[in-house]
């Protein structure tokens, strides 16, 4: 029950923000827009007279696939986990929700969910833990719009670390599920 309320509470302002962003682009004032191609990162465009204007936030200016939009929540493809845990953290739920929705809308899209762990503990157990993490993400996606056939899970355990290091910094980066779109 609380789940849904929380979700709603989180999603609502996000939706509004999106809306604002769309509007904001039109309130920008006098803007000399030079087409220098997409400046997806919303960097400043310096005009010939030295005046500087700031382009609106990339949202609507982005021209390309949603999935490639770095501003999109969909760019968030890595879900992180606590040690020895396969529980989805609150801060990751939005992203998963987004992906679920995307998958829901795009039936042909498929993702591979790669589960990983940090190096501590035993390897085979970590393979299983990685799988569990991947499956946790999978569950949530399913729950929120994706279809089973769109989801593949695989676990690499500790075999494929993202960060080579032997401290919490590296470990934290390694405890993850990577969402990889096979087809869009």
């Amino acid at each position, binding site marked *: 029950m609380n789940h849904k309320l929380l979700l709603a509470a989180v999603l609502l302002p996000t939706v509004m923000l999106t809306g604002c962003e769309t509007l904001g682009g039109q309130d920008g004032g006098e803007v000399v827009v030079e087409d220098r191609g997409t400046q997806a990162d919303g960097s400043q465009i310096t005009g010939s007279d030295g005046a500087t204007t700031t382009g609106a936030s990339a949202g609507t200016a982005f021209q390309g696939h949603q999935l490639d939009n770095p501003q999109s929540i969909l760019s968030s493809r890595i879900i992180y986990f606590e040690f*020895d845990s396969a529980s989805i953290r609150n801060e990751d739920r939005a992203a998963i929700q987004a992906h679920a929705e995307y998958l829901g809308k795009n039936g042909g899209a498929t993702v591979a969910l790669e589960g990983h762990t940090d*190096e*501590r*503990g*035993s*390897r*085979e*157990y970590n*393979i*299983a*833990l990685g*799988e*569990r993490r991947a499956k946790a993400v999978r569950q949530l996606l399913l729950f929120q719009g994706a279809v089973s056939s769109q989801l593949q*899970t*695989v*676990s*690499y*355990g500790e*075999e*494929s670390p993202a960060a*080579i290091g*032997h401290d919490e910094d590296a470990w934290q980066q390694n405890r993850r599920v990577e969402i990889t779109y096979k087809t869009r």
Partner: protein
Amino acid sequence: MQPSNKKYRNIFSLVIFVLLLAASPAKAALTIQITEGVDGAQPIAVVPFATDQLKTALPYDLVSIINNDLARSGRFSPMPEKDLIARPHDGGTVRFSDWRLVNMDYLLVGRVRQLGDVNYEVQFQLFDVFKGEQVTGISYPFVAGDTRRMAHRISDIVYEKLTGQRGAFNTRIAYVTALTAVTGKRQYRLNIADSDGFNEQTILDSSKPLMSPSWSPDGQQLAYVSFEAKRPQIFVQQVFNGQRQRLTDFKGLNSAPVWSPDGKHLAMTLSKSGNPELYLFELATKKLTQLTKHPAIDTEPTWSPDGSKLVFTSDRGGKPQLYIMELSRNKPVSRPRRLTFEGEYNARGAFSPDGKYLAMVTGNRGRFQIAVLEMANNTLQVLTDSRLDESPSFAPNGSMIIYATNRNNRGVLAAVSVDGRVHQRLEVQQGDVREPAWSPLTDAQ
């Protein structure tokens, strides 16, 4: 009192007195209790074998291999060559009193003869210096290509005669090496080397991870997990001719393959049912038998030497702990019973060859170390002092446990004796070395 009675009484006392006098030497005057000793390696002097008669020199020096073996075991302390006080080659010229003065417990001497182009014969004698007698004297034929193996055999014999345990020097280790090229591309290799790190041979090369090598009981095959298809699959490969066969490719996990002691089954972990469970795979028929049925993770099975029990890792209690299951005719006869209660995290059990001990990875407050559980009285002893230890594997004579650890940011192999007294570092190979598996002893050795 009659005078005669008194006389008899005196004689009687005298007789008793004499008897007592006679009796006392048979009983020692003193008894001293010794309840402690010292721990330490036994000093042994290994004199370079006589090789002056050889036409063709041996490819390796037998005695330096023997010295390395004996020193590596932690049980012996070979005398440095420069300190040898004499260089006898057989018992005839040995002066035990001299060796006693330099406190050597044992002395090994020998000769090598050449019988043909590549055929040799070694003859060696092992002496107990303080007793002043020969412990054993043997001669063996061998070919040049087997020089290292011959040296390991001699080490095994010396080890066995002096400790009562079979030696494990003439054995192999399998392990995985992960290499990272400068481009960042990673390479994985399944390697086999002699127990002293020599003769490394790669039997599989892959750009994707390799895991969990497991020896067959006859030492001829290795089972392992390969991600070459971007998902884990279980393979079985002949060590000496490279022939291999993919055994399983089920949905989800195909992992932790372990050969049964009779060589007919592999226990493994599959998650095709939805979560990781233990299965038995019968090699001849490829028939699968499910052994566990629980939503928790059940993985990393290890067989007891008699094949009647499986210990595995399960987090059905919340966190990973070791559980034991009894089998009869390859079917579980009871519900799994929890084995480990100390520590927050216990995984990756490995039975000793005699079934008396169980090695494992134990985790406490973020530190992961190798521990050993004595099955008979349920006592747990932590053997290592580092933080990132994993994959314990027993030597086939049960004397040492080899494991993977981290040193200077590199994955390396190390070994520790079952009682924790002796620690060894193995030769650092290139790359990150992990997942060691010690080959079994075979009679052929």
